[in-house]
């Protein structure tokens, strides 16, 4: 556009040139975005669209799919095992998210600083995040082993407490799964909160120290308000990730015992691949997508409102 100002000429030519430059400017970013968009289209949006489409069919790839309207949705929503699974998902999602945030916050407070030893510990604490969930699950399964051979139970044995069947008791299995989830989530949250903590104005701490405030007051009135943006990000991520828990449960308990750890996605997986009901599984997944979307938008709304205030 600056070119049009520096080189005056006939009005018509100027308009044409302006158009060409504008066109180029409009196209260029899209050109740069194209590879990424194309990949997203082929590997994300088309399969997603296909999933939505399939959720209205009785899927029989070789005989021709049959349109069943909303049948898959009503079937999924009225299935009592699915309703149970939704309950477990909510408990697990909320528990893991909040637990992960609290644990991450505590870890961040403990491990904030520049010392070399802290860096090493931070790296060690972060390891669960970079380990494949399937591997973590298998490790915890062995740690939870319900006899004195299991790591946790051998520790309890030293205290004179009997072996606890963490995963094989329907009353404890969900909580045991949650503990593992928190162990995996907390370090990731820790890193985000650490970044937030680094931005806290040190002079505020000094002023507070001079005023003689308690530790709790310092946390409540200085630290927490200062890291609110970081907490917002952590909360948004939790809302997105909380409900789609799958691998942890699949590896640890497979949804058992007696379906006590069955969650939304393990139920959908069972529908799709154990019962060959692809339509039902698609409907379940679409429902999860909608709920997750709604949850994310809600969390974002409250975050923005909080920021404005």
């Amino acid at each position, binding site marked *: 556009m600056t070119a049009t100002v520096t080189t005056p000429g006939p009005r018509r030519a100027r308009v044409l040139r302006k158009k060409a430059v504008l066109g180029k400017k409009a196209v260029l970013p899209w050109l740069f975005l194209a590879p990424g968009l194309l990949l997203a289209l082929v590997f994300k949006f088309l399969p997603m669209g296909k999933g939505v489409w399939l959720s209205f069919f009785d899927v029989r790839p070789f005989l021709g799919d049959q349109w069943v309207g909303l049948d898959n949705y009503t079937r999924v929503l009225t299935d009592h095992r699915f309703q149970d699974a939704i309950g477990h998902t909510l408990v697990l999602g909320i528990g893991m998210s909040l637990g992960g945030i609290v644990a991450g916050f505590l870890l961040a407070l403990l491990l904030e600083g520049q010392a070399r030893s802290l860096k090493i510990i931070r790296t060690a604490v972060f390891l669960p995040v970079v380990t494949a969930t399937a591997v973590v699950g298998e490790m915890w399964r062995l740690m939870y082993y319900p006899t004195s051979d299991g790591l946790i139970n051998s520790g309890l044995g030293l205290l004179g407490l009997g072996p606890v069947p963490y995963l094989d008791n329907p009353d404890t299995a969900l909580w045991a799964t949650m503990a593992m989830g928190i162990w995996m989530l907390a370090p990731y949250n820790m890193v985000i909160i650490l970044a937030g903590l680094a931005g806290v104005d040190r002079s505020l701490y000094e002023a507070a120290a001079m005023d003689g405030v308690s530790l709790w007051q310092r946390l409540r009135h200085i630290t927490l308000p200062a890291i609110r943006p970081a907490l917002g990000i952590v909360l948004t991520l939790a809302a997105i990730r909380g409900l789609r828990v799958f691998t942890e449960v699949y590896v640890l308990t497979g949804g058992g*015992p007696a379906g006590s750890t069955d969650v939304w996605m393990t139920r959908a997986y069972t529908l799709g691949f154990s019962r060959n009901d692809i339509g039902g599984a698609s409907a379940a997944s679409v429902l999860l997508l909608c709920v997750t979307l709604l949850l994310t938008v809600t969390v974002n709304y409250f975050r923005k409102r909080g920021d404005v205030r």
Partner: protein
Amino acid sequence: MRDRRRCIDMRLRRGRRLAAALATSGLLFGTAACGSGSGSARAGDPNTLEVWTRSDPDSAQTYKRVFAAFTEKTGIKIDYQPVMNFDQQLQSRASTKDLPDVMINDTALMGSYQGQGLLKPVTPASIAGHGEITAKSWSSTVGRDGRHYGIPYSRQAMTLFVRKDWREKLGLPQPKTWQDTLALAKAFATRDPDGDGKRDTYGMVVPGSAQNGYVAWWGASWLWQGGVRIVEKEGTGYRPAMDSAAALRTVTWMKDNLFCGDNGVIQPSALTSVTANTTNFQDGNAGMYLTGPYNISTFDKALGKATYEVLPAPAGPAGNDVLADGENIYFGARTGKAKQEQALAAFLISPEGQTLAMTGDHQPVVRIPVNSTLDAAKVRGDARWSVVQKAYEDDSQQFPNAPDWAPIKQDTADSLNALFTYCGSDVKAGLKELNDTLAGDLKDQDLLK
């Protein structure tokens, strides 16, 4: 199912529980190794057959040897794909309407595949050597419309693996009945058969998770022995049969004595165990395992031939029938290479093809030969296989092959796992509910009578 289990078995086989980290990081590599390439169909070449089997790399070596012999004999080339996540891959190929020409997979999947229209019907007479397969084996490939949809390839039946050294040390006889088995299991759990002074052994190994229907797969033999059928044929359809008095008696017995009985009769993690992480028998801390003969080579390596014995399953109130299953050869629908496919099937069921698949350095892919001129124990030079062959021929029941069995197995497993988990549960009400669910499954398939 078995090959997938074995693949995971291999990955997870381990001596010490606390060496978890090593074993599990190995899992990652194992997963990669057991995965498969994408199906590159050379559909254009009429002289090449694309063949899929559900196999881990070790079994795939045996298949490769078999197919090489076939190519040498007939000149027909084989584009061989060992596939671990068979059904997911098959679904994606089905959506492109281009199936592999020949597939070798579980017998219990036939109803499901036929229901989806994935299979070509087979005329037994069109397969050279079809007379060498017994009528019992052929009858297991009849679909809903009375036509055959598969060719029997390998069969197996469950047998009881028992730690012989432990049993002899405690001076107890081979178990012949459920009561014997229970008494032996209790002795293994309480009388320190491994002599280390600790109570760290268990009577019996149970893969009791509902995941992929395992508890129904393992429990089927017990149900058969109690005189229970999950569904019963009636006219042209089926009706659910899990509300019978026999079912109530059998499931109650299993719950009270195995899952809610004395500590240690079964391994403590039974309710969430699938076969892949049920390694107590080969780890040397459990004394019995009712399972398939594909484990023989694993146990030989882990425990040694002399330490354990292969016995017919102990009898329940209604006999000692066990679950039989195996693999069939399936022809993909609309592939148009009938002659070549028939030639391959004829070779695979011939004495030569079956013997090749039962022997060699790698995991054998034929357990009990379907070719009646062969004897598993003689071909292998191992008398233990005659126990398995006899169990298959005389005392075994397959899952019904015509219905889509997947939902029925899954629902049965969900229900049994729940009943066994809650020791105070009302078995009668639980089985009634299961029966209604099974009726729904059959109704969905238009098979309910």
